[in-house]
């Protein structure tokens, strides 16, 4: 359990567009152990999906580029291996669940064939064994194997997402990247799908990065949480650290205040004022400084490092820069 399945160090990703360079991910550090679930939380455009796509090296051709940093998968540096080796990792060691199940299945292929394709590509199983595997996977996600010859449009949204999950897990990957897997589903189906993903993850001992902006989902499923803002991880810790500790990054505080609470008598939410900074502009100082209620002069000039507040909990804010601060520069 102790070996690092995934280790991302100082990852920087840029998109080159006609209008200029977009600094999407600016120095992200993450580690994930086998069987662990990491929740990657943040606003739209914070760089969550970009981080996940970098792990699979699926950034858009000629536009997105990993500028610096390293991604170690099982100790192997995957930013430098060839495209053919990378293909072997995709779907086999690392697989991804996309946000919208409605569009991530090929409309003109039977679902069984789509599950079987991943198996065909990464194993030496013969046709019968592959069919058996497809049946197993469909059963595992709670669908009848007899429906494998049906087409995606014959399934409901929740069922389609189950099929997408079946495809992703068909080759027993070590790491599953789930990019907002439940955003497109309604609440009841959402919890079913999450429950099922959790069960399957435990059964296959798969590590998972769950990208979401739903803090409820994170509390329900994750072991560790990383809060992302403008291409930085601003706070990193276990679920207990994030949900129960008193010390937080001002952004995390703002994020929690933006959720309506059922048990408190309040009629107005407290959203974070302002918008995320333009990712085309490289900011001096802390990227949250413009919206931060506790911003100081220093925040506008210098970038904060990652400061350790407890064993597992780091916060990237000068408020927590104490004697024992871990002066790791971002």
């Amino acid at each position, binding site marked *: 359990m102790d070996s690092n399945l995934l280790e991302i160090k100082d990852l920087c990703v840029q998109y080159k567009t006609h209008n200029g360079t977009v600094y999407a991910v600016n120095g992200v550090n993450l580690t994930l152990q086998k069987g662990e679930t990491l929740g990657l939380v943040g606003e739209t455009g914070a760089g969550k999906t970009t981080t996940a796509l970098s792990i*699979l090296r699926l950034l858009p051709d000629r536009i997105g580029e990993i500028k610096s940093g390293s991604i170690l998968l099982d100790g192997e540096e995957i930013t430098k291996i060839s495209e053919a080796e990378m293909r072997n*990792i*995709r779907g086999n060691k690392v697989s991804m669940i996309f946000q919208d199940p409605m569009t991530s299945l090929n409309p003109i292929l039977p679902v069984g064939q789509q599950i079987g394709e991943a198996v065909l590509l990464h194993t030496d199983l013969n046709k019968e064994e592959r069919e058996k595997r497809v049946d197993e996977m469909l059963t595992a996600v709670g669908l009848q194997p007899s429906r494998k010859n049906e087409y995606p449009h014959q399934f409901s949204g929740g069922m389609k997402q189950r099929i997408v999950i079946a495809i992703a897990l068909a080759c027993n990957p070590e790491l599953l990247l789930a990019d907002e897997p439940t955003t497109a589903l309604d609440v009841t189906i959402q919890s079913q799908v999450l429950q099922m993903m959790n069960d399957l993850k435990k059964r296959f001992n798969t590590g998972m990065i769950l990208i979401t902006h739903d803090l409820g989902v994170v509390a329900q499923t994750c072991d560790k949480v990383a809060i992302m803002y403008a291409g930085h991880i601003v706070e990193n810790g276990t679920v207990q650290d994030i949900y129960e500790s008193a010390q937080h990054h001002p952004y995390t505080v703002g994020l929690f205040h933006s959720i309506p609470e059922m048990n408190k008598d309040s009629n107005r939410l407290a959203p974070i004022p302002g918008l995320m900074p333009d990712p085309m502009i490289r900011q001096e100082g802390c990227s949250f400084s413009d919206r931060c209620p506790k911003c100081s002069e220093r925040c506008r000039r210098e970038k904060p490092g990652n400061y350790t507040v407890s064993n597992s909990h780091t916060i990237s804010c000068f408020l927590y820069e104490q004697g024992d601060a871990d002066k790791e520069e971002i």
Partner: protein
Amino acid sequence: MLGLILFLIVLFFAIAAPVFADYENEAIKQNVYEKFAPPSREHLLGMDAYGRDLFARIIFGARLSLVISLTTVGASMVLGCLIGSLCAYYGGWLDAITMRIVDIFLALPMTLMAVTVVAALGTSTTNLIIALTISMIPPFVRIVRSAVLQVKGSDYIEAAVAYGSKDMRIILTHVLPNAIGPIIVQATLNLASVLLSVAALGFIGLGVPSPQPEWGTMLAESKAQMRYHPWQVIIPGVAVAITVLSINLIGDGLRDALDPKLKN
């Protein structure tokens, strides 16, 4: 629907031609004593200037026309799909250069292109097919490219990459089958224009060489007798018209069925 029925009738006569007539004796062998014989029970549409059975020549002509146009469209569709999908899928320099070449070819009228190629290679059925195929590829490349570009952006293509499919596999199993609609429509409509080109080239003497019965060639041969025996021109003309019309009707029907934008 009407188009399909007409086309099936033409297809039936083309396939069953040997049942109705004897190629060597009726369509090729000249019999000058019976020239311009009026329609009779033995010769349904009468005889032509060389005493050949017109009905036999029409149905064998249908065979030839259909074989030539289907081969041409088939070959140009396969090549067009290959070039078009590679260009769209990989983009970049390959795409830019190929598209400029395609633009140059598109600037020339198809028949003119075919005339040039046939003139360079000499008249024979094979050369005719080659000439028409070359002139048919550019429009296909265009259509396939745009269809593939549209499909390429879909999430399921990205998903296929994400579970490790190779490029060729993605193009063949995921991209092309999803882009096939507009390609089929284009193919059908092209079939009609190829058929017309075959007849046109035959008429100006660059098509199928005599004495093989080809509609355009038949028109050209009998145009001298047009004033006294108009039947000789009308029959091959009608044959061309009906076939082209039927294929165009099918093409329009397919387009309406496959293109959701035209559905109200």
